[in-house]
């Protein structure tokens, strides 16, 4: 019973405090708030260890069970331990030109940039499907998208000065109105969920049940 009630009690106290501190500017309350945020950072740092242990366990099991794709697990271990070794044992690993720094700048950063740049192709292929005028809504989307795309490049202005103006209207009136409508709903949904969690009505996030 205590295993269930203690987290709920802690959640209630912490949640209530976080809500109240928004309205109380007194430095004693704000200092306590800052301290709680520091605790969160400490907690996250410790949790990082749990994540690393999970990563090692999953890939170790793949290698031990001779899974078909265990080669990727070996690459993961090579990368993990190489970076760990360079980070722990090489002095001044943050210094420009250090092996750790070189590995980060010449391996990690280009790989991430490549993944990010793939988005351009994904956007193109997704847009191709979305802009098929099969229904009234899809046709409206296609027309709006064509106007917005033309209005954002110099050729749109060259065709007609109305196109950039229409682009601005689409983005600032119907588009913004829809976004604000969604955001009001999101805000209320967030508050309702927070209240249910603070009051212990919603418990599925901690494993559900009573």
């Amino acid at each position, binding site marked *: 019973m205590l295993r269930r009630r203690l987290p709920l009690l802690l959640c209630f106290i912490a949640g209530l405090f976080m809500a109240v501190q928004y309205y109380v500017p007194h430095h004693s309350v704000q200092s306590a708030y800052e301290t709680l945020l520091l605790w969160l950072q400490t907690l996250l740092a410790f949790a990082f260890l*749990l994540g690393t242990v999970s990563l090692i366990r999953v890939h170790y099991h793949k290698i031990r069970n001779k899974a078909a794709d265990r080669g990727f697990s070996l690459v993961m271990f090579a990368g993990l331990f190489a970076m760990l070794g360079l980070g722990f044992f090489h002095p001044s690993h943050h210094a420009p030109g250090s092996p750790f720094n070189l590995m980060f700048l010449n391996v990690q950063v280009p790989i991430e940039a490549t993944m990010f740049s793939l988005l351009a192709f*994904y956007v193109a292929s997704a847009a191709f499907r979305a802009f098929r005028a099969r229904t009234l809504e899809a046709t409206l989307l296609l027309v709006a998208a064509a106007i917005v795309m033309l209005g954002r490049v110099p050729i749109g202005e060259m065709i007609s000065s109305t196109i950039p103006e229409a682009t601005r209207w689409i983005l600032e009136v119907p588009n913004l109105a829809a976004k604000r409508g969604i955001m009001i709903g999101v805000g209320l949904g967030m508050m309702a969920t927070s209240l*249910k969690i603070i009051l212990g009505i919603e418990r599925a996030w901690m494993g559900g049940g009573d």
Partner: protein
Amino acid sequence: MMRASLAVLSILVLSLTFGWAWAQDELVLEGVEPALSDTLPPDLIPPAPAAGLTAVDYVDNNDSGNKIDLSWTTSPDDGDGAADVTGYQVWRSETAAGPGDTLAFVAAGQAGYLDETAEPGTPYYYSVTAFDGTNHSDAVSFGPVAGARNWFTATRAAVLVLVSVFFGLVLVFTQLAERGAKLFVRRIPGLNAIEEAVGRATEMGRPVLYVPGIGEIDNIMTIASLTILSHVAKITARYETPLIVPTARAVVMSAAEEVVKEAYAEVGKPDAYNRDNIRYLSDAQFAFAGAVNGIMLREKPAANLYLGAFWAESLLLAETGFEAGAIQVAGTAMVSQLPFFVTACDYTLLGEELYAASAYLSREPKLLGGLKGSDWMKVVTIVLIAAGIIMNLVGADAFVEWFHTS
């Protein structure tokens, strides 16, 4: 004779040299502009004073009662008139009698100063004089004013009132639901599709992939996602379909482990729970996206559920899932990512539907009350927006001002 000639010649050369040099000096002196201070009389006229000095207790978000906010109207000679004001001198005194000590010099053109050195509770008198480099204007004064350690941010009163109304509505409808009142909830196709997607994965003998986003555990979207994960895990446990949950945050992984394990135990299938399927991949956004894409292509899940906080990786995931032929259901409150999910997924939960999912799936009366409360708060919001428009049109700005926060 010779000597005399040399002497005369020497005198001539020296005279010529001296005369030339003297003439040069004269020329040089004539070429120099006399200094302005040598020609103008000293400035005896002080600038016009500043006006309308006010000082108020300044309340920020870490209030120690030591801040007083001063503001005034600049001197007519500041940038205009004689245009000779170089700045303002701010004085502070604990008595009404004198200007007291100099607190600060403020540059010309500025009309305010924040005193951050006040003793809480001590009444002060402030004076401000305009300065032109030589003379001070008459002082403009204000006081007494004291800093206080505030316990409430008055500018946030409107938020407190509206939040209280909203929480009241949620609690009222929760009570009504508990007493058996029938609360209508519209059909949400995306949520109905979750069970269908899991069923399809079961028929195909392939796993279900559940991505709870890349938000940290303190993100409410992640919490909402974990509540949906609990329902999804119960369905997969019943069907004995493998459920893979890749995470980008270690704390989320720990929470997801607990949620899934508990769900499997609740439906009486604790042995079907596989800890290795709840995986921490990477905190790096695109490393995570790459790893999840790898899972989609190698382990070939038949159903992909993306529910939580997503950023630029949303389309990378959803488009790969589409190419892999999986049935896909997404849901996020990140407005900028919704178009990507709508385009690439079969069903998408728009914004607040993500928060409604837990109540919708469980049909628990207490949770449904929260949904009704949200709906009625939307009515209140619409009424307030309409009232704000009308009040602004008739010039009753105080109504709109009351909603401004800082």
